[in-house]
């Protein structure tokens, strides 16, 4: 429970910090709407030429876009800023200050930076998702909704662990932040059902960079395409990666020697 209190505290601090830059709210709102407009515009153009895309109807792809924004917003809200700061603080040695605090350091670095305006993306994601669900009609029952939430949580944990592993590499290598650029372009690929891609790319986006778990698989849960194997696989992978990233983080910490030491 104290973790949630901490998270709330970090939220409050970053809201206070950001209120000094109120214009940023409108800038981010504009930016998010622009991004959404481009995504929907692209879909509109594509579906003006075809009725289904790799077996997905327009409304199902719309649901996927909603999930894409939702998860992208979560990444931008807390995962990415925290990991970026971790990389920077390993390089310049300010991680010292985090390590001396009486809370778990991994937890602190994971939640201490909050890009508050990314909440807009999350809200937009919900709106798009809701619209898609209404248009899909009564196909989504309580069971599907529960599986969807489960898959969303699993996907979130997988992405988080993946980022933590990458960011932890900064204990060995100096210029890790570039990897974030790769992730960004890989994540773009998640805006489309991964089933579209040829085998080698599909496997890459599922197992090397787990984008599929964050977007396609939750969307599959909503559109009743999810098999039991995938469901169990996602939960198992989330657990394994979470433990693995924790272990790797501790291994990295052991190597850390601070800035002035």
């Amino acid at each position, binding site marked *: 429970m104290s973790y949630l209190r901490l998270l709330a505290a970090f939220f409050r601090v970053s809201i206070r910090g950001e209120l000094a830059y109120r214009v940023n709210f409108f800038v981010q709102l504009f930016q998010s709407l622009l991004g959404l407009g*481009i995504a929907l515009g*692209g879909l509109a153009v*594509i579906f003006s*030429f*075809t009725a289904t895309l*790799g077996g997905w109807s327009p409304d199902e792809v719309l649901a996927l876009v909603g999930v894409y924004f939702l998860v992208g917003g979560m990444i931008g809200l807390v995962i990415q800023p925290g990991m970026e700061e971790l990389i920077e603080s390993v390089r310049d040695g300010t991680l010292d200050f985090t390590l001396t605090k009486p809370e778990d350091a991994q937890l602190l670095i994971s939640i201490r930076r909050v890009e508050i305006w990314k909440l807009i993306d999350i809200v937009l994601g919900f709106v798009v998702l809701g619209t898609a669900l209404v248009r899909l009609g009564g196909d989504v029952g309580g069971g599907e909704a529960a599986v969807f939430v489960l898959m969303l949580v699993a996907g979130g944990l997988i992405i988080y662990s993946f980022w933590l592993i990458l960011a932890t590499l900064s204990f060995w290598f100096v210029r890790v932040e570039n*990897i974030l*650029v*790769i992730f960004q372009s890989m994540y773009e690929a998640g805006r489309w059902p991964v089933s579209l891609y040829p085998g080698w*790319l599909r496997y890459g986006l599922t197992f090397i960079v787990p984008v599929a778990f964050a977007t396609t698989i939750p969307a599959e849960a909503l559109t009743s395409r999810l098999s039991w194997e995938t469901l169990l696989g996602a939960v198992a992978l989330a657990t394994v990666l979470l433990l693995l990233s924790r272990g790797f983080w501790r291994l990295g910490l052991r190597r850390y020697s601070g800035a002035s030491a």
Partner: protein
Amino acid sequence: MKGLAELYVQQFKTTMAMMFQYRASLLIWMIGHVLEPLVYLIVWSVVATSEGGSVGDYTKREFAAYFIVLMLVNHVTYSWVMYEFEYRIRHGSLSFALLKPVHPIHSDIADNVSSKVITLPFMLVVAVVLALIFHPSLSPPPWAIGVFVPALLLAFLVRFLLEWTLAQAAFWTTRVSAINQTYFVLLLFLSGQIMPLTLLPHPVRILAEVLPFRGMVGFPVELLLGRLTPAEALMGLGIQAAWVITGLVLLRVVWRAGVRVYSAVGA
């Protein structure tokens, strides 16, 4: 003029050595530049297949040609100055550049070109691999190949000058990421990186043609695909040239005003 040429030669030598130090970042940029067109190549191929082989006036293999050529053109014309400029101002490293007797844009051009001398061979290999996988059909008329070279050069200049101008927004605000992102989204959509611009609804297409975006990427691609008449090619070159001139003027105006408000943060 001779002085400037010598400067470039010297700058090439130094940055070439420097770029080899940044191998990892170069590789990462390349991955991004391959993935994005690849995704859209696949999406449009899927659509073309399900629609009986073609969409609009593009067959599946022409989509492959379009996005493979686009990948190369985008790579040749991209710059990272919009990401870097804010850092230079925030950390005050621009102050050193200001002490030099030439405009800092020259060393940026030299950096940019020398990085591409290193990366382009790899991108060509990737293009060949993608061509083996996706079987593009590409048969431009000879004149189009000839015009492609100046079109590509102008595309680079339009993009570089306008991005350098936009990057200077950092003189007035320390938070430029919103401006950058807005620009990149517009670029993505209106330069033809998501779809060939001929597939866009007519009004949007006209907008894309008049704005500088098509001249940055889409126009040279369409040219090499042999999709333009000589008159259309000439028109495209004209629009590019107009934007180069506009870019030069804007760059100067903004630079003068910007340097005046610049005071290194922390100085």
